[in-house]
């Protein structure tokens, strides 16, 4: 047990802290390297809006903004203050919907993103792995070969293009699914069957598009892992003893081939924030991606900073959690 903690847990937690340190430091440095000063931009934006502002007011505003962006004091002081605010969970007020705190905007958007992306990622992972294992084991099956070709043909295409084509076909050309949003505008968000049904109906197209693109990668990976494993001695032995093929696949091959795929799943969960961006913009889904897009359009600097920080911490945490439960699947790690 002591050895397990020292050799497995400690390095992983150290890695977690390193990633967060690196990510947060990067997010701190990037804006300071940029030639554009957010304070000046904000001030000039206000002056361009045409309202008359006295020079004194501008100086006062400049000071207030410098304070709010955490740009006062030496770089080192700024850096420590940056960490201090982050650890207190204070991401500042959003500039575009002042004075709503950034953290509150994120909290409203997050359930939509997670509710759609976690099922999408899990379904793609399961479907891709099961089909991939079947494809690796029954190499000459016609049906599975067709699945192979199809999934590989869609896989390399950028998500945006797949989503756009699906939207054009299933919402515009053959309108069986709603065009955009998570629910029709004007609907009250509540817990009722009819509302749940509406939300579900709106989520089918984005969900399908994510799964369609997600399955391919897992499929290829699992197929090659399986075809490496089927020549292992224990599989050959199981075949010689005359065990049914289905049982060999489900109890001998899949549990062993699956291990690298679990690590992959951790990284995939981490990509939630990137995956959400395009999907939500295309389908007008009210989650983190749309929030990011709106923040960019509205020049909302604090909101973008908040999203970047949150995604770094979120991704690292997802990876850590999966690393921590990984020994449950792999007895070799438990008994080192």
């Amino acid at each position: 047990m002591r050895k397990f903690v020292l050799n497995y847990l400690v390095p992983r937690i150290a890695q977690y802290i390193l990633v967060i340190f690196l990510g947060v430091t990067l997010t701190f440095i990037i804006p300071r390297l940029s030639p554009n000063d957010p304070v000046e931009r904000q001030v000039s934006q206000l002056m361009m809006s045409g309202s008359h502002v006295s020079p004194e007011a501008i100086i006062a505003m400049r000071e207030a903004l410098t304070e709010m962006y955490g740009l006062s004091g030496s770089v080192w002081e700024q850096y420590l203050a940056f960490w201090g605010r982050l650890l207190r969970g204070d991401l500042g007020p959003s500039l575009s919907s002042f004075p709503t705190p950034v953290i509150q905007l994120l909290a409203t958007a997050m359930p939509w993103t997670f509710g759609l992306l976690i099922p999408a990622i899990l379904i793609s992972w399961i479907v891709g792995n099961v089909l991939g294992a079947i494809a690796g084991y029954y190499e000459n099956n016609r049906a599975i070969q067709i699945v192979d070709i199809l999934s590989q043909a869609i896989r390399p295409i950028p998500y945006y293009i797949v989503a756009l084509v699906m939207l054009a076909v299933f919402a515009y050309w053959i309108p069986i699914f709603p065009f955009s949003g998570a629910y029709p505008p004007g609907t009250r968000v509540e817990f009722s069957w009819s509302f749940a049904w509406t939300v579900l109906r709106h989520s089918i197209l984005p969900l399908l598009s994510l799964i369609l693109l997600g399955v391919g990668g897992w499929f290829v990976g699992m197929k090659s892992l399986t075809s490496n494993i089927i020549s292992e001695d224990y599989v050959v032995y199981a075949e010689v003893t005359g065990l049914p093929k289905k049982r060999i696949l489900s109890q001998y091959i899949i549990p062993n081939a699956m291990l690298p795929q679990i690590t992959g799943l951790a990284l995939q969960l981490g990509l939630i924030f990137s995956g959400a961006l395009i999907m939500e913009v295309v389908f007008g889904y009210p989650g983190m991606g749309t929030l990011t897009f709106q923040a960019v359009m509205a020049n909302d600097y604090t909101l973008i900073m908040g999203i970047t920080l949150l995604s770094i911490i979120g991704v690292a945490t997802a990876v850590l959690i999966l690393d921590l439960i990984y020994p449950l699947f792999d007895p070799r790690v438990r008994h080192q």
Partner: protein
Amino acid sequence: MLAVFRDLLRYDGRFRVASLFLMLTLLLAALAWFSPYPPTRTFMTPQDLPPSLEHPFGTNSRGQDLLWWMAFAVRNSLILGVITAVVSRLIAIFVGLVSGYRGGFIDRALMSANDSFVVLPVLPILVLLSFLLQGQLSLVTLALLLGLFGWPWDARLIRAQVLSLKERAFTRTAVYSGTPPLLLTLREHLPFVLPVVFATTINNMLWSIGMEVTLSVLGLSDVTVPTIGTTIFWANQHQALVAGVWWWLAAPILVAVVLFLGLYLLFSSVNEFIDPRTRLRRIGA
């Protein structure tokens, strides 16, 4: 090299399709040098003409012939892919070789930096960056930035290869005959690693060109430069689908599908060619 090419053409259907698709893409990209006007000029042709013999891809609402525009777009997207690939390959090869060969503390330090980069979410960081640069993010800068983020997967792959090469007899022979470490890794190990580097290069290009599409569609790159992504951006700006100018979107989608399928098929064909196990199974050994 030529013999390998010939064999792949003869025996691998995927390689044949990939070559055809990539030829078409390169041909289109080469057309950029014959364009009658630079891509920044607008209203050179009648607006919104559907595809015809005279304008194979149609014309857009900004009065540009989509064939010429797409030629520039593909050329620029490919340039971006190549720059990113070169930068990230250099880092990956360096980190992979050093980490694998030196081992010990250097290996652990490099690999934990490596793993941190694997986990860092690139897209939000790029969004923050391009937001701060406000459209000043040129194609080359974007390519360099992507290069800085695109190496960790491949570095790990190269390191794994070097770890096994290190145990082989020829490495020991080289060490005992006094070859300095730098020369040894460059002369003895690098050639073994290059096929993997080539395969991952293609994959890296798929990734970087796709990233560019994502950023440009959101209007976060320099939208005056034609790329596959900025074409879609302009089509969306002019609401091409609503206006019925579907060919404005069809052109980049078609070109992207051909380019991406071509690269991907090439990647999987080469990958299989490199891995002797799959090759042996194919010929039934």
